[in-house]
């Protein structure tokens, strides 16, 4: 399956998508440092067998505010949607993620999953996650998960005890955190993402 990658603010990214029967779309959104503002995406799954594989990576290492709003609407049954977002928020930056999964009445056999994980780099950074499920069918599999946390100090000490300098060890931890989304990017963009980490 093709994976469409959009760097928000650089590429013209869609704000509305409609997937017809049997259509499959994989899409990855990248928010590099300094992007800021609000980005909204709506996806309608309109025909049976449509599938959406959506991932996103947002980097707000220093300051500014970023709002992400994603609405995935399962209008008919038998469709699948997966979302995985990963964010790094540091300095005085704040990031919020609103994700709504809507399953229409009688859209049975729907599978819809959403995850948003944020890594905080400072005490003053803020990350908010507002996952919502609105489900009007009874034979569905839906889940959402959200976590917010700091770099693991045990990992950091383990890496440093092997001689990896503290800064480099933190970089490695951040790269590992982003890896599930970053591996969907081509090498040049992945390098750009890693180089932009504090």
């Amino acid at each position: 399956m093709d994976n469409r990658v959009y760097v928000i603010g650089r590429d013209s990214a869609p704000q509305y998508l409609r997937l017809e029967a049997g259509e499959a779309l994989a899409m990855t959104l990248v928010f590099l440092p300094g992007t800021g503002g609000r980005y909204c995406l709506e996806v309608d799954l309109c025909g049976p067998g449509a599938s959406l594989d959506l991932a996103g990576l947002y980097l707000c290492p220093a300051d500014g505010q970023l709002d992400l709003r994603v609405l995935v609407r399962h209008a008919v049954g038998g469709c699948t949607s997966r979302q995985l977002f990963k964010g790094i928020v540091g300095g005085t930056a704040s990031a919020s993620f609103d994700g709504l999964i809507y399953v229409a009445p009688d859209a049975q056999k729907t599978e819809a999953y959403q995850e948003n994980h944020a890594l905080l780099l400072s005490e003053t950074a803020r990350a908010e996650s507002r996952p919502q499920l609105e489900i009007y069918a009874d034979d569905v599999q839906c889940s959402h998960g959200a976590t917010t946390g700091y770099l693991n100090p045990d990992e950091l000490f383990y890496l440093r005890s092997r001689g990896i300098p503290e800064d480099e060890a933190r970089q490695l931890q951040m790269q590992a955190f982003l890896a599930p989304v970053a591996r969907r990017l081509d090498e040049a963009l992945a390098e750009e993402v890693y180089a932009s980490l504090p």
Partner: protein
Amino acid sequence: MNNQVLLEIKGLHASVEGKEILKGVDLVIRRGEVHAVMGPNGAGKSTLGAVLAGRPTFEVTAGSVVYDGRDLLALSPEERSWAGLFLSFQYPVEIPGVSITNFMKAAVAARRKAQGRPELTPGEYLNLLKEKMALVQMKGEFARREVNVGFSGGEKKRNEVFQMAMLEPTLSILDETDSGLDVDALRIVAEGVNRLRTPETSAIVITHYQRLLDYIVPDVVHVLKEGRIVRTGGRELVDQIEQEGYESIHG
């Protein structure tokens, strides 16, 4: 054995969250020696290892540690590693997303840079990796796995000894390397450690049981109780502990 002192610990006190764990440890280790530190649970054995490796959660409140002529306590964990100190963790940490290859590549590169040695070529690195993996009987796919993720207890400890082999330490601290190992894994781990022994390098083997010491034979045995070394002797101490327990050992 050239008898030169490698590590000298004097009156070491250390606390965690205000609670004193080490209450005046004295210890001298010469090059070429293997020392066993034994003791009951909660005696401070793992704390001693962690303090020597520079774990930030412990605060050294008194005492000194001279390693190879340097003030060890003034060094960061990474500087201690570059100086040749290695801690094999009792509970090795999982690092999802980081492969063993990349983990060790970063470690080896940082160390060589700190020592002013040229970087290894990719071919040289690969050969080093293969050679050291063979030492702990690890297969090729091992290097591509994420660090300790989904590893069995035995695999985690073999991974520790593999890393030890990669970094060629001068002073190795093995913290409860025998815990959670079956006999086969224990033998592989012990053989790895023994093959890394040289007249120039030393080891501290921290253990609760005598089992590991059947395979890694210590020159000196210390008993740590309530934050102090209460007895130092030869291998006969191991037998005494085995027969009579730690209650029989007093300062």
